[in-house]
């Protein structure tokens, strides 16, 4: 093998080697462009805020300081928003995944009388949407405004997830479910005891997509709960800061809605707060996704084939 490789290397023409060098250089540039913004945000968030004003913070903090983090987590609003973000991510994902799996199981049963009707009713909704105002009026009529449940109930079912889970269940060996039924297990028991554990790999995929969606959402907060700070989420708080600084057209917000706060002990600036919030809002995803990417990738290719 080693010999073969060696002789192969000798045969590599000069053009190919230039190509390789160019390729590696390109990939390294790509990685820098992808990662640098996060590194920079981290550096700014960990740097002394009054020192950051001078500029020149790129890859690492110049004067290490945790004041921005202390300040952010001294804010009741932010702590509570983090709690709501976590709650909607956990509850929304669990409920949605369970319900989608149950429907997928029912419509995977070939003898189910309502199978065609249910499938069609769900699939049709992938092609249209009532739109902003009709949905808004509906939520208002249902009394879901200013309520935590508006994050969960309107999006409880993901049709695409149902399709992905169903095709996975259809690929399971029939014998398993058959034997459970012969043993006298009802449909629900079969679903809970046999199907749910067996579909865990695909449920991991769909629930990851749902969790990322829930964690990243801010528009429903903006639309339905913007007057109730008790129901604000991390992303929405960050979005408000972004809008504040947008108005002035630069990243420094002279009005500094946040920085005029009470905590006189810590010196913070809107820039340092924003950087800190950015890190807090993206950290869970940065930490988790590298370990779970094979599930994401699997979900995407599965959806591409069967969707």
């Amino acid at each position, binding site marked *: 093998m080693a010999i073969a490789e060696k002789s192969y290397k000798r045969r590599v*023409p000069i*053009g190919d080697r230039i190509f390789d060098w160019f*390729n590696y250089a390109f990939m390294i540039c790509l990685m820098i462009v992808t990662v640098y913004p996060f590194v920079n945000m981290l550096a700014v968030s960990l740097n002394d805020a009054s020192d950051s004003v001078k500029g020149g913070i790129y890859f690492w903090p110049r004067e290490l300081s945790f004041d921005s983090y202390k300040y952010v987590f001294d804010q009741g609003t932010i702590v509570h928003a983090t709690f709501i973000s976590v709650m909607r991510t956990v509850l929304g994902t669990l409920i949605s995944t369970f*319900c989608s799996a*149950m429907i997928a199981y029912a419509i995977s049963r070939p003898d189910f009388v309502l199978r065609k009707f249910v499938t069609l009713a769900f699939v049709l909704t992938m*092609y249209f949407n009532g739109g902003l105002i009709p949905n808004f009026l509906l939520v208002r009529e249902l009394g879901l405004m200013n309520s935590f449940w508006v994050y969960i109930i309107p999006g409880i*079912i993901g049709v695409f997830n149902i399709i992905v889970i169903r095709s996975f269940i259809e690929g399971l060996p029939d014998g398993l479910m058959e034997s459970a039924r012969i043993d006298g297990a009802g449909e629900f028991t079969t679903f809970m005891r046999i199907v749910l554990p067996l579909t865990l790999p695909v449920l991991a995929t769909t629930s990851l997509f749902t969790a990322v969606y829930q964690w990243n959402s801010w528009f429903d907060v903006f639309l339905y709960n913007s007057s109730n700070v008790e129901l604000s989420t991390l992303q929405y708080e960050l979005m408000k800061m972004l809008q504040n600084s947008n108005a002035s057209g630069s990243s420094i917000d002279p009005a500094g809605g946040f920085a005029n706060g009470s905590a006189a002990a810590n010196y913070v600036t809107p820039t340092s707060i924003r950087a800190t919030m950015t890190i807090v809002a993206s950290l869970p995803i940065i930490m988790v996704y590298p370990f779970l990417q094979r599930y994401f990738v699997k979900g995407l290719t599965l959806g591409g084939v069967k969707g």
Partner: protein
Amino acid sequence: MRLFMKRLISQRALVFMTVPFLIWLAIFKYLPLWGWTIAFQNYKPAKGFGDQKWVGLKQFRFMFEDDRFLLVLRNTLAMSLINFVLGFVTAIILALLLNELRNAIFKRFVQTISYLPHFISWVVAATIIQTALSADGGIINIILMNLGLINEPILWLGEGKYFWGIMGASEVWKNIGWNTIIYLAAMTTIDPAQYEAAEMDGASRLQRIWHITLPGLRPVIIVLVIMNLGQILETGFEPQYLLGNGLNVDYSENLEIFILKYGMNLGNYSLSVAAGIFKTVISIILLFSANAIAKRFGQDRLF
């Protein structure tokens, strides 16, 4: 019918598992369609349904005569087209280059890194983009000034003419890695014997990419192009909304923002719903045409 009822009763467990969600579906997905009637009225929120004044297609006529709407339509199509072309070209090139990496560990590493921005929310991405483009110490201005390409910082988000380009670049930054997945999956199905034969014949790397890999991707590319053409009015909403401001509004406002602005800020529900219907109907037509075209190309149906 009796047989149907009998089977329904014997399958009541399955029925109980699905019927609650059918009710949910009726309320949250089908009932809002009733709201489309608002587009044919002069809707006043204070009045009941029976008291609304019906105005036929007036809202739609008004919409197409509104210069603002036509401007918004231009922005939507322009950003869509830019994202479409840039998205395809960059993802295909990156996939081809990734495929040429000999070191498998390095390849996996690059891939993992490149997926990252896809999972980050647009709020975070917009914060990052705004920081990078800032005229006051933003990295883009610093680099351009150090290279001597510009003499003073540019207010990137303060001038409309840059906005479409910024959107295109942001979209590429966020999704280039993720978009390669499907191409890389397709590349694994190309027969390695083809590469060996080409090498025997003395084909160079670029020739092999051009004559073997790229043709191997053709079916996937065709399907994806057609599928994306069906979504040409779906420019997305978040980046334009989050990075739009008073200075670039003539270039950043797209159909979704128009709908939001008329509906929520100005309280003109009827016009907002009319614009929404326009968008949905065009999208459905495009989607079904795309499906028909895909069939003609001999591809599997897209949906």
